[in-house]
């Protein structure tokens, strides 16, 4: 669409106010939550003063730290495996033509389509029946499954955007397939890989329902821990740790977008 703003022809009544309300709606809770995390008052709603105490409490709580560590371990491992699987699959799907490609797309997209609660139930039943103990490993496995499509999409997009002639040129210039991949494909693909890995990481960090079902004792991740805290009651510590999670997610998304802008 061309630049038309300012031209009264394109001002539809009610559109701008609605948009304003919507953006306020989207960010109000986030702002309020972060705001309250600095509230000195224990009885959250009335503002009495600015403090970082709640953050200090949170960051010194061994349970929270352990949950955070678990979250990071799960997210890192799941991301690593998922990104590798996504790279291989992406290379195959974009550099080859064969029947059944639609089927592969469908399978890879499956974790995105199936409702989270259904996946959680199915995965739990699978682990119990097959006899896999519920613990950190089970969580990692479950996370890897849905991290794959999130890593796959940016990688595939980046591969499709690459000129296929570049790899032919490399072969033409005496590079065998492995060296062509390492010297030409990989450097150009790298932003896509980073982007996919970061998205996958964030998704894993934020996932609650599936983790809730398949985490055993000692495998609590941060979202599951927060859920437990909320169940017990509203406390400023919950505000603080929730705000932390929010800020981490926002930071990651911003980074991912910025990386996506490089070498467009």
């Amino acid at each position, binding site marked *: 669409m061309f630049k038309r703003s300012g031209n009264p022809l394109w001002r539809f009544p009610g559109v701008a106010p609605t948009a304003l309300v919507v953006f306020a709606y989207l960010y109000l809770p986030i702002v309020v939550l972060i705001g309250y995390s600095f509230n000195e008052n224990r009885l959250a709603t009335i503002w009495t003063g600015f403090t970082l105490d709640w953050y200090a409490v949170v960051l010194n709580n061994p349970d929270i730290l352990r949950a955070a560590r678990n979250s990071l371990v799960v997210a890192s491992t799941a991301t690593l495996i998922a990104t590798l699987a996504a790279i291989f699959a992406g290379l195959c799907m974009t550099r080859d033509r064969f029947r059944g490609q639609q089927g592969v797309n469908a399978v890879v997209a499956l974790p995105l389509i199936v409702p989270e609660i259904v996946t959680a139930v199915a995965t739990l039943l699978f682990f119990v029946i097959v006899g896999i103990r519920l613990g950190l490993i089970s969580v990692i496995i479950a996370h890897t499954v849905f991290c794959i499509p999130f890593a796959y999409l940016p990688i595939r997009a980046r591969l499709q955007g690459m000129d296929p*002639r570049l790899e032919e040129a*490399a072969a033409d210039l005496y590079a065998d397939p492995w060296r062509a991949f390492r010297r030409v494909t990989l450097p150009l693909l790298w932003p896509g890989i980073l982007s996919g890995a970061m998205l996958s990481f964030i998704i894993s960090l934020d996932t609650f329902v599936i983790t809730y079902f398949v985490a055993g004792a000692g495998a609590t991740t941060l979202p599951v821990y927060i859920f437990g805290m909320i169940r017990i009651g509203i406390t400023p510590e919950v505000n603080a740790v929730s705000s932390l999670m929010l800020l981490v997610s926002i930071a990651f998304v911003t980074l991912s977008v910025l990386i996506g802008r490089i070498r467009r």
Partner: protein
Amino acid sequence: MRSTAEAAIETRRLTKVFEGPGGGVRALDAVDLVIRENEFFTLLGPSGCGKTTLLRLIAGFEQPSEGELLMRGQPIAHQPPHRRPVNTVFQSYALFPHMSVAQNIGFGLEMQGRSRAEIAETVERMLALVKLEGLGPRRPTQLSGGQQQRVALARALANRPQVLLLDEPLSALDLKLRKEMQIELKRLQHETGITFIFVTHDQEEALTMSDRLAVMSEGRALQVGSPTEIYEHPTSRFVADFIGETNLLTARLSGRDAQGVRFALDAGGELRGLEDGGHEDGARVTLAVRPERAELAAAAAGGEGLEARVEQVVYFGTDTHYHLRLADAATPFVVRRQNRSGALGGFEAGAAVSLGVAAEAVRVLQD
């Protein structure tokens, strides 16, 4: 029978079929071709004729469906591209955007394991060869189209391949640059002695640059020869029509005598030719006459030439085109006359003229 060991590239019944819904596409249909060492050889034809497919088969990016592909007598059809002593200049240049110009040019040498010193020296030499000295550290995106094209050329030549493949390398350049590069390429081929296989759809380009060329259509090589042969002696309607402008006349082979072969034109009148194109007496044939090989004179009753009337006169500065209708008032004929004495001495629209075609100028097509 020429020894095929001399041939830089030889194809024997080379065929390529692309699978697709509703039957495949025969991009190449049993092509037999011999390309000699140190030749500037052109594959010429409209889009879809198979010339690019043939190039890609030689480079190794596609596998043939049937037939053989030989290089200096050795079959190479199943060698992967990185093992063939062949380099390609791509239509879109395909320069590695994340490497500098120097790294691009040196890439092939790097892959072959040459020493750093040797690579650096060769890169410098190549930059000088294509007149891009000093641009080594730049990135391809910082260069103009013409400069990128020359980098692509240098990158390929740096490896001293046995055969250099060029896939319509000049199509993205503007006219002036194109003409310059045509001369450049010709010079480079001469200097390096490498066999160039050049793909284009521009027949003028093909005629000016090639030692020999192959005119292709619908997956087949219709005629192979030097530019002169192709232009002067086209063997089929397609070739006659594709290369330059031609007048095509349908006729019947009416007889032979000491002075040559006689043809009775459908449009009325008679022409003499020196060849029969392989046809029998009484056969229906198509004759081809180049517009610049025909003569115009004022109409004279009982004269030797064909009767015709000028329908339109188009002035081109260097020459004038006369669009005629022959005696049947229907068949068109174009005569091109150089404006030797300026615009004087021409004919006007509506004038009756006498059209003369020497026997040497009459081509009998084989189809």
